[in-house]
């Protein structure tokens, strides 16, 4: 390989020059691809929002416009009873709880329950409740005519407010579902940092074994 260095070297040097240039061009292209993919990661956020909107999944806080009409036109199924459990979690400076913990209802029956929310701070605070259902398939059969979770709620300092939830369980609910748990989590909207910090403290408390 080293027998004829002079000639080979010249050629290698010339080749080296063009290789260097095309290497740098390739470098530029690949950096652009990497940056574009970094942007694509962020683009996924509005993309998923759009997909959820179009397909109608994950619309937890959207008002169910057909629910009132549905409740009027539905036969009450007196042959079966479903237990509805109510659960409430406050994230931030809230006291949040349902006035009853569980009810037995007939599918198709229009039911009203009341949740109590206390703003434990002296300053006005805005929050948003996010509902969640167990079992998860029951969400499609749980139609809320009226709910405080449809919009953000603002409470004055130390205010206590009672929020009604009016709902009807679709009689088409699968027969094997005997119990539905409706759980709300009330999040603070303005001053999200405060809520996050509270969460962080909770996690830290838990990780040192003192949390609860």
């Amino acid at each position: 390989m080293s027998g004829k260095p002079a000639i080979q070297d010249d050629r290698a040097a010339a080749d080296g020059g063009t290789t260097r240039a095309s290497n740098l061009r390739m470098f530029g292209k690949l950096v652009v691809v990497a940056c574009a993919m970094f942007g694509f990661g962020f683009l996924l956020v509005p993309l998923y929002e759009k997909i959820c909107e179009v397909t109608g999944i994950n619309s937890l806080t959207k008002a169910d416009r057909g629910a009132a009409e549905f409740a009027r036109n539905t036969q009450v199924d007196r042959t079966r009873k479903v237990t509805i459990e109510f659960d409430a979690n406050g994230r931030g400076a809230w006291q949040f709880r349902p006035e009853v913990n569980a009810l037995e209802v007939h599918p198709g029956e229009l039911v009203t329950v009341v949740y109590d929310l206390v703003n434990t701070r002296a300053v006005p605070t805005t929050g948003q409740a996010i509902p969640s259902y167990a079992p998860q398939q029951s969400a499609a059969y749980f139609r809320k005519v009226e709910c405080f979770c449809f919009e953000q709620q603002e409470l004055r300092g130390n205010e206590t407010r009672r929020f009604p939830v009016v709902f009807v369980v679709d009689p088409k609910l699968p027969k094997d579902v005997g119990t539905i748990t409706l759980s709300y989590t009330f999040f603070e909207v303005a001053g999200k940092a405060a809520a996050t910090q509270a969460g962080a403290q909770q996690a830290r408390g838990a990780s040192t074994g003192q949390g609860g």
Partner: protein
Amino acid sequence: MSAVLDHHGDHAHDHAHDHPSGWRRWLFATNHKDIGTMYLWFSFTMLIVGGINALLLRTELFQPGLQILQPEFFNQLTTMHGLIMVFGAIMPAFVGFANWQIPLMIGASDMAFARMNNFSFWLLPVAAALLVVSYLVPGGATAAGWTLYAPLSVQMGPGMDLAIFAVHIMGASSIMGSINIITTILNMRAPGMTMMKMPMFVWTWLITAYLLIAVMPVLAGAITMVLTDRHFGTSFFNAAGGGDPVMYQHIFWFFGHPEVYIMILPAFGIASEVIPTFARKRLFGYSSMVYATASIAILSFIVWAHHMFTTGMPVTGQLFFMYATMLIAVPTGVKIFNWTATMWRGSMTFETPMLFAIGFIFVFTIGGFTGIVLAVAPLDIQLHDTYYVVAHFHYVLVAGSLFALFAGTYYWIPKWTGHMYDERLGKWHFWMSMITFNITFFPMHFLGLAGMPRRYADYPMQFADFNAVVTIGAFGFGLSQLIFLWAVVKCIRGGAKATDKVWESAHGLEWTVPSPAPFHTFETPPVVK
């Protein structure tokens, strides 16, 4: 031939001809062989660190109840074990192989960007230091699992920030490494080395590097969002501000699934180099191997949600991801078939690299089958987050990637050091690893089927016996790796002189240079016929 070492220092860009010594040789290394060596030692160190994490976990799980660890620390160890093994051990090890072998295999004098190569290596110890230091900050290291799922990752203490920075840095290192590898392969092949003449290892790394460039930035984006959610009041995943934690999983697994192929495709490449040599036949179905690798890479982008069957997906979505996932079994099957066909009627001998390569096929196939089981959505909903999943991904990652790395090490180490390794130690390493690996991970299938969830420091009584067996196996597996260290160190320090070709039936440019490979090789490109 060794004259390539000592002539002409008169190029304009003569950094490649400096021969620094002592610590400067390593800190300012621009030689692909030195950098490859550093990558390999770094990843072995990380393998030991991650392995110690794992053994601590297994010690706690030896018996039901809490004996030596608090559950919080246990969670930190599980998380760090995953992060260290994935980003610190397996990935850098393959980059180390790429650095050492790709220029030698395609007849290039070095990697395309020698200084960037240095930078991408030296980022790794920094990232590793961040991870290790995070054990010491208030609240300890991140305990959200290696996937860093929101909302846990949005809430944890400062250990999480350190982990995010570490992953950012390791991601940057991988992207730079990949740019280097792609440019080297596409622009610097020896004359006559057409794409379809490239060794399979080079092909698999080319495809892997493209995968890395496509998905590493997406991971960087996802954890950047976690970071801004934590500190700058955004609400990508923070439900308090209208964000959605499940979206983190979607973005993460868009990275995460290609990532698992990033960790296995170069292993396929190594197996495709080792098996033909010891079967004394050409690789069966070379072009189908290339197409299979490319199909696996493309399919990896459309199967991410099979990690998320339990998040509440519409049935049509579950069906799509289920069938798309099962489709991956086809190109993977092609590969297994080709390796088997390569061995068919070959004149096989069973030196340590071949043992590890065959062991790789055998155990990886088991992991592939459990993968198909997990792809079935109704089964996955039952098995999700159980030890069945732990068994599955250790079969493909430890027995797949790690065994292939061992095969590659024994295969090429005579070229690197100039000495033959001790065959007896190699065989001991293989058999001990193979047996203890299966003692460790096979019972996990049963634990998972019986419903034992993963990532818990404790378990009910009925799982006690299998867990005791698993822990014994794990210590055996950990100790077996000391045999590997011994074999490697012994080989570096001496041993029978290796010939240039090393193996009777080895093919490829790397076997045309002397053993040990001189500091500079292929300064004048070889011509491939």
